[in-house]
């Protein structure tokens, strides 16, 4: 398969209050972006267990986005600080897993930042097209 033709598969973990809202706002504003992202809705980005990210890559996701409220604005005060720490640990693990670091991305987006959500997806999709599909599991496939 030609790398430029494939639509990357991005699993995005969102929080109910900010980042899911920014995705909604992108929709309400009719901002168009590629259909690469699959949103998993959680109450807080702090719920994102690093194992969830690893399972995503293990099962063939080309990219993973961990998203939440801006630091200091977390609906649950400090949840996203944990997210940040866990994300930083995951970043280091990417090399160990044999995965390109650009496959993992962190996005802080408030519920009024629809534009930023769309731009992040467009950006990441573009980047994943350049890097190519996930080497594990031959880029998905199988149920």
């Amino acid at each position, binding site marked *: *398969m030609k790398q430029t033709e*494939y639509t990357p598969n991005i699993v995005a973990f969102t929080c109910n209050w900010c980042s899911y809202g920014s995705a909604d706002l992108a*929709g309400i504003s009719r901002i168009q972006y590629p259909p690469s992202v699959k949103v998993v809705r959680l109450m807080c980005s*702090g*719920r994102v*267990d690093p194992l969830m990210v690893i399972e995503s890559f293990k099962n063939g996701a080309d990219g993973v986005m961990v998203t939440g409220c801006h630091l200091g604005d*977390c609906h649950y005060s400090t949840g996203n600080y944990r997210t940040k720490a866990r994300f930083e640990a995951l970043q280091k693990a990417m090399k160990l897993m044999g995965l390109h670091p650009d496959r993992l991305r962190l996005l802080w987006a408030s519920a009024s930042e629809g534009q930023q959500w769309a731009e992040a997806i467009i950006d990441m999709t573009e980047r994943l097209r350049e890097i190519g599909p996930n080497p594990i599991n031959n880029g*998905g*496939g199988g149920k």
Partner: protein
Amino acid sequence: MSDSDVRIGVFVCHCGLNIAGTVDCPRVAEYAGGLDGVAHSEDLMFACSDDGQETIKKRIREMGLNRVVVASCTPRTHEPVFRACIEEAGLNRYLYDQVNIREHVSWVHMEDHELATLKAEMLIRMAVERVKYLEPLERKAVDVIQSAAVIGGGVAGISAALDLANAGFETHLIESRPTIGGQMALLDKVFPQNDCAICILGPIMSKVGQHPKINLLTYSEVDDVQGYVGNFHLKVRKKSRFIYEDKCNGCGECEAVCPVSVSNTYEFGLATRKAIYRPFPQAVPNKYTIDKRGTAPCRIACPAHVNVQAFVALLREKKFDEALEVYRRTSPFAGTLGRVCTNPCQTECERGKYDEALSIRNLHRFLADYEREHGGVNVDPITPDKKKAKMKVAIVGGGPSGLACAYDLAREGYPVTVFEARKEAGGLLRWGIPEYRLPRDVLRDEIGILKQMGVTILTRTKVESIDELKEQGFKAVFVATGAPKSRMMRVKGEKAKGVYHALSFLDRVNSGKTVAIGQKVAVIGGGNAAIDAARTARRLGAKKVTIVYRRSREEMPAIASEVEAAEQEGIKIKFLSTPVEILTADKAVSGMKCIKMRLGTPDESGRRRPVPIPDSEFKMSVDTVIVAIGQEVTQDALLTGLEPSMWGTLEVDPVTLATNMKGVFGGGDVVSGGGTAIEAVATGKEAAKSIDRYLRKVDLVEGREEILIPIENIEVDETTFQMHYAPVVRALSMSKRKSTFEEVELGLKEKEAVAEAERCLSCAICCECEKCVEVCKPEAIDHSLRDEIIELDVGAVIVATGLSAYDPSGTREFGYGTFDNVITNAQLERLTNAAGPTQGKPKRPSDHEVPKHVSFVQCVGSRDRRVDQDYCCYIGCANSLKQAVQIKEKFPEIEVTIYAMDIRAHGPGYEELYNRAREMGVVVIRSRPSEVEEVPETKSLIVYAEDLYTGERLETTTDLVVLATALMPNTETAELAQKMKLSTSKHGFLMEAHPKLRPVDSFQDGVFLAGAALGPMDIPKAVAYGKAAAAGAEALMAPGKFFVEPIYAEIDTELCINCDLCSDVCPYGAITGRGEERRVMFELCQGCGTCAAGCPEHAIDMRHFRRQQLMPEIIAAARTGGEMVQ
């Protein structure tokens, strides 16, 4: 959990064409029908409609469905609707998941229907995987506290509070200003009927103030909000007005005597108000407030904490005796220190950051001199306190430290005796400082103040021991005998004839004795004593006087103006040199050998240590040497028994100044080894404090510290600020300076002093001059009051913090802030207001003339991407039309032009207002002015614009330009939003849960939003929002209970290893207990799940977002890649 008899129903919504226009819904429904566990799948037109919901319920019953997935719009809108729907059909509401195929699919992938449909299918598959594992959950009920808090006392907040209170709920109305009323209270008239704003609002404000169910907390801010719906805990800071609200009757006599004026924000800068003020006559509560920002930096810097700002403020008002009285609250030495103080206050003066620090020392000198010239020093004697008659205090040493101590103790009613060994008191002020700096009679008269007060000063009386004082019946002793001995240089030849030591040299001159001085004098040292010795030597006839100092000019400890004066008198300074030997001939000075120095590394004082340069010796031709390298304490008999420090000075406790002997305290140079006069005064005052406590048998330390609060941000009104330097102080003629001991510095004249006082920035605003206290008959003023923290428990919170106007100095093309006659709508509102600064006449700022032509420029800062404010201010058109009509009604001959891009006249009454304005002759030009220029002679303005209808270029001269400015959220709104976790929009306004259907709900249950904090709006809209928010709050509180979402964490104690990783990360402290008792308190848990993500044993998990429920969804999401590849 996951059963083989899971029967999932999938419903794919068309949402009309919103989804179906992009996604092939029937195909998606078919796909879903083929998924494992799905018992039924269909597509619907509008799932959320009555019809749609009925269908869902029917299917649940018909097909025995036990799980439901709806693929439609965002769950953030309708999840509650569908949950309620399935509950009605007998299914637990948590056995449901919603897939977003509208906001996340059909609306954002409109170009590619095929991929959009595929994505919809994948998202449904994810949800199906999750929903298999969902479990039934029961909602728990919590009690709702039956009271509410409204934050913000503008018209929205007032409306909300009244409705809540009338419904019977205890309501706390919290307002940050001293009065409620917000923006509306400051308006003149309101459109479209042009009612008088305060006339209609005033009675409503009174009702709020008097309502038995409203707790009005004005001048208060919310510091912290904790809790959850039905149970909020607020910490409110009630700022101190420094006035007892129940005693103040609003008479205003305090305002009349207050000497501090600042720009009045309630008049939008067009007028001033006093530090003690009432925002406007109809203020509720109708009480005065003192605006005190802290302690001015000058006062903090002064070691004795003289209230500088207060005496300067009174001086400015020409109340010279009252100003002097303020100085004398601290010490009697206004004139003495006015001449010799090192003025640390001036170093910290805020004005110094702009042009030049205030000449503070010369100002209090002026006050003392003024008194001398108008009747002389006259102080009332103090009536001694009979109860203290036996508590005699002895002060040994009549220098500044001892005298300051006597001053304070005498004023407390103690019988004080000062023992002075010399023939006259004053210490180094009398015997060290030369007369050309401090004339004798100035010092004598100020020491005389103490005598007038009743202090006994015994001169020519040397005290030999502490015991003899105790025998004489003195109950406490203050030792302040100074450090009058000069330090020796310890070089060869120091004992020769012609070598003097500064302190004894100056003492001899000050005693009137003759001193033989040669023609070529060298003075060794760089402190004030060296300068004094050098300038004295000059006056005694020396032709050549050279100061030899071992460091450089920057390190000289002497007062800079003294050094300057010395050089003006022809005295030379040789830097970086020090003597190594004094050459003698016949045991008299014949010359001096010196060595050059360079500056090395810094020593303990921070100054760079001088290091001799080898082989750089040189000779100086001198016949007199005066050594001025420091002071020492003499080992007096008096000091026997008192513990010395390792430097030979008297050892005392740094806080209480107590020595090792009971009842004996020490201060001044005898402790410090050589400090400034003001430092000595400060220690004398501390000793007085200690002695007073000691004699009253009260703890010496507790509560003794004077509370000085530094000001964090000193506000300076930069628009009215003008650079202006301090006056140069007149000095004696040079010929007299070199030959006589007449006073050199001649001080400021009255006009100069008053002008100098006007430069004071009034940093603290209220300066505690206490003139208000003197005139307040109900005794309502207390400057020691402090902020109070009030804790409130409420069930609902309404946020109505309002907005503020844009400052148009940012868009420089209109000249606001530079040209006098360019003002804003808000300012014009005050000018036409009968209660405003011009009593209702629209006089223009430059000449107070009524203009002949007024121009309005609309949309200043609004609809403007350059300043990131591309929204309409909602009221600008109506406001300007209203003001134009107001002007035309009162002054029909004034020509009025409005430059607007559009006229937005919406709703009933506004088109009529526009027509009325046009009929009255108001000219409306469709344009956006590019620039406003000023005509310098008349201060009139030229407006450059292009008429967009005719294409004509216009250049119109006008007398007054009014800018219709943009509206922005208050800074307080941003802070509060952060504290309460409220979402804000791109422009900083609060964000409602849904712009159409939930305009007063926030995303936080129990927190409602009202008024202009949500965005620019007019008064009726703000009132409506306030009432709507109140209704929302009432709906929450009335049932008494609220159902809490059962989405909280749970611990399996079998797996838990008590590692505390979960409790460490929990923001709510919801985890408690250990071992088998370990559990999550569900009322506190808010359901974020951060604990579950970090548990190494998978022991703690989040209900409804369990690991087993999420992982299948995530894996399904990851695996969808294969199908998407072309």
